């Protein structure tokens, strides 16, 4: 499966400035692994691996990923399945506050 992944400004240092890159995989997790092989360092900005989850990890709290305009938090997270031609969008949260 080839999908297009839109990269936000702050992560374009990993993609030589490209706004969108293509990735291969049947799930979001596989696509992120594929991106990592071409753009080392990108995975760590998207996925947080904690002790006890056997290395699979989960999306970082303040990173949003959408597949065809759906927030993947509601479609299975990293296990979200992808089809040829799907569009993946990565957007860091806009958040903060006095706390």
């Amino acid at each position, binding site marked *: 499966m080839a999908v297009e992944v839109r990269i*936000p*400004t*702050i992560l374009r240092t990993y993609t030589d400035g490209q706004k969108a890159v293509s990735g291969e995989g049947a799930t979001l997790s596989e696509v992120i692994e594929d991106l990592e092989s071409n753009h080392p360092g990108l995975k760590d900005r998207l996925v947080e691996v904690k002790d006890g989850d056997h290395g699979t990890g989960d999306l970082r709290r*303040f990173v*949003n990923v*959408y597949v065809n*305009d759906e*927030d993947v*938090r509601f479609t299975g997270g990293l296990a979200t399945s992808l089809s040829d031609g799907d569009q993946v*969008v990565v*957007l*860091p*949260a*806009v*958040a*903060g*506050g*006095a*706390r």
Partner: protein
Amino acid sequence: MLRIEQETYDAIVAHARRDHPDEACGVVAGPEGSDRPERFVPMVNAAGSPTFYEFDPMDLLRLYQDMDARGEEPVVVYHSHTATEAYPSRTDIGLAMEPDAHYVLVSTRDGGNSAGPVEFRSYRIVDGAVTEEAVEIVPHTTRNDESRSQD
């Protein structure tokens, strides 16, 4: 420095006043690379909190799609602090992900919902480093005067 129109400045302050004691948030979009904050876009604080703000994830997607379609970027990202000074907190710094944006902070700790002057300050936040910058309020940004857009 941040150069911003009086009307946009007033709209940001009014939004912060209206949402006090919760934090208010939004962006001012402008043409990519122009450094001109032209289109005021108030956002809902999905956290609905006096100490935290976060754009709703679906609102965030629509905002960025809309800016993409218009050839815009977030020139200003603003939010309010409602009990503390208008200076980026550790959370603000850690979560600042737009290196090209002016981060505007407004404090409504004086006056709350009522009118009156507020603390209105602007910063660059890049890789955890905060740099305060001057704010110039202008009647209108001169869109055709390219000589002034570079500073």
